């Protein structure tokens, strides 16, 4: 009984409080006219005031700009206050004007030091015969939040947190010291590694909805070699081309490496050479090596060798309409395990062509043996079409054909929707 009277009571409150005309009593015709007249008067008044306020603001900013700015100190670095002109009509663009409210801050500047924040949603769809693939038909695969800011005059920090369907993780979180003496670009924290090209890339910067077979079979899949560690990278001066050497040490806790002892670390080295062939073409070559213990027992290690090559074409005058990228990576894995050592090889080759301002077409060829049993050979190929509504969203379709070593053949249509909000990040190169 009590619960029913409560429900009636709240129902009554809702009805009384509701401004929905469906629930309101219909007023007589004369009242309605009166109401309409009052409403239009109010609108007119509001419009008039908005105009006046905009005009006053414009005059105010003009006065401020015209007022001589007394330099607070004779320091030559202090720039003169820039003159500011408010574009006509900006005040009426629909948003509130003036400074934004500050809640609980000590000063209005307390939020100035907040990091750049961005969130990227990665939504995947899959259809067709997956030959045992566990990818669901529709899935919010990942939401990645990034927080990036300068720490102090010596360092900057980057955090990338990922929220998957059933887990939350730190994809990367590291501090970078860009100006360590000796030109050593130093990073400390959890990082994606410098092994080849794909291992360092976040999902949303990949030119595909998935990762190549060789990544899945030999280099740890989506997680890759990402681990906690220290990285130093140095330019090697020479008169001919860009050459950079990177050395990284990791705890040995990743999808490929598992260190049984604290003293067993995973090591990674990468050498990258780059040369502009012309203003619009360039060549990017890399060699990588990674070594560490694997999960088959305390005395078993895995060694990975990688070679990558990228050719880019981008005509500067038409760079926003035409681009071509051709890339290949080759990986050799030598894995010790109880049954004997397995030597597996894998590779992919991709083409990515931008044929209009918002359109990309791509193709990828895949081949990879399995790390734990090199006699199982997977092969595949993909065709891709990508559309960018803007720089901040992306729609992609991928047809993927895979012939698995055990015998299954998959023909799948994969979709991806990427959408990002927040700070404008740098474009990947």
């Amino acid at each position, binding site marked *: 009984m009590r619960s029913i009277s409560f429900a009636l009571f709240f129902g009554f409150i809702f009805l009384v409080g509701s401004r929905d005309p469906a629930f309101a009593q219909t007023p007589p015709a004369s009242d309605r006219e009166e109401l309409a007249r009052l409403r239009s008067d109010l609108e007119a008044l509001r419009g008039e005031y908005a105009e006046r306020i905009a005009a006053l603001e414009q005059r105010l900013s003009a006065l401020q700009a015209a007022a001589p700015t007394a330099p607070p100190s004779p320091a030559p670095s202090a720039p003169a206050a820039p003159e500011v*002109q408010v574009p006509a009509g900006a005040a009426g663009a629909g948003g509130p004007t003036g400074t934004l409210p500050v809640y609980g801050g000590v000063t209005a500047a307390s939020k100035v030091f907040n990091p750049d924040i961005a969130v990227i949603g990665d939504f995947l769809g899959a259809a067709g015969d997956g030959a045992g693939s566990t990818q669901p038909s529709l899935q919010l695969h990942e939401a990645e939040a990034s927080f990036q800011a300068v720490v102090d005059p010596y360092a900057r920090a980057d955090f990338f947190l990922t929220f998957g369907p059933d887990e939350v993780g730190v994809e990367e979180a590291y501090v970078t010291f860009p100006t360590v003496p000796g030109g*050593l670009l130093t990073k400390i924290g959890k990082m994606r590694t410098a092994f080849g090209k794909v291992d360092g890339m976040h999902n949303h910067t990949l030119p595909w909805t998935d990762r190549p077979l060789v990544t899945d079979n030999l280099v740890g899949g989506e997680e890759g070699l990402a681990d906690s560690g220290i990285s130093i990278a140095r330019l090697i001066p020479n008169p001919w081309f860009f050459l950079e050497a990177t050395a990284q*040490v990791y705890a040995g806790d990743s999808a490929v490496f598992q260190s049984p002892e604290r003293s067993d670390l995973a090591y990674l080295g990468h050498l990258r050479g780059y040369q502009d062939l012309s203003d619009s073409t360039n060549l990017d070559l890399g060699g990588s090596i990674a070594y560490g213990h694997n999960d088959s027992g305390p005395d078993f290690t895995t060694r990975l060798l990688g070679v990558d090559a990228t050719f880019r074409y981008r005509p500067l005058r038409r760079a926003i309409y035409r681009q071509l990228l051709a890339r290949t990576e080759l990986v050799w894995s030598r894995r010790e395990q109880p049954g004997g050592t397995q030597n597996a090889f894998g590779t992919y080759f991709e083409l990515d062509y931008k044929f209009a301002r918002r359109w990309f077409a791509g193709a990828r060829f895949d081949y990879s043996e399995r790390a734990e049993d090199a006699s199982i050979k997977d092969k595949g190929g993909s065709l891709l079409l990508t559309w960018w509504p803007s720089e901040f969203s992306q729609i992609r379709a991928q047809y993927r054909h895979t012939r698995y070593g055990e015998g299954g053949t998959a023909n799948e249509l994969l979709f991806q929707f990427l959408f990002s909000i927040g700070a404008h990040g740098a474009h990947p190169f």
Partner: protein
Amino acid sequence: MRSPFFRSAAALALVAAMASPVPAAINVVTTTEDLASITREVGGDRVKVEAIAKGYQDPHFVEAKPSFILKLHNADLLVAVGRELEVGWLPPLIQQSRNAKIQPGADGYLDASLTARILEIPTGQITRAMGDVHPLGNPHYWLDPDNGRRIAKAIEAKLARMSPGDTGTFAARYADFDRRLKEAEARWDAAMAPYRGLKIVTYHRSWPNFCERFGLDVIGYVEPRPGIPPSPSHTIELIQEMKRQGVKIVLVEPYFDLKTPNSIARETGAKVVVLAPSVGGEKEITDYIRLFDYDVNLVVSAIEETGGK
């Protein structure tokens, strides 16, 4: 694994050994060719200047090539346009430059926009629904010659601080640039004066400073919103508006496709003018003053061709 410590010690020793006395000229890298030209005007042979973006390239979308890292690695001074024009490519280059001198906030980093007159600073709330808006104002501010003067002044102050012995040289060179710019401005203003208030259309919002300075009235853009490529419905609206207002000039940057501007021109009888937004936009535009010579000439002859006012 002695490598990290061994390497850093070896690297330190190497750097110490290679450290040479103060170089003869200040190594300056600028993000655009306009800033490079102005730096040359002020610095003369006391500076060595290199630009990153070419004048005919869209400065919003420059690739962060490793070869640019090498340029920045050896720079004493980096001059940037600022106002987030380079937000998509400059930060990673600076970070990988391993050069403490040019990090933002350091003495060797100059944001040229700080003393310039900036237009279109949004007030109130902005969202990306408005397209690729620049929250700090329109970054194409160098297209008003008076801002060129302000940039030159800022560069002069910076160079004088970096090389106090050359203060006199820089001041004299600035004064000379200022004088030549004034003469040229009189020439440009005179050429454009008959057409004050002329209504035009531009592709991107690259020209507010240019148009304000020379009295051109921009009534619309080929892009429906900044950074969003032309759409058929917007193009039809724009054509109608241009016919209604009798607009005969469409200004286009050299890095945009001419298909839509050309079809607009066919419909309205207007003329498409590919203006150079930067030094180096065309071969003959070799410095900042020639940039305006080229653009003003082109605009004037286009207006005359389409029947004056």
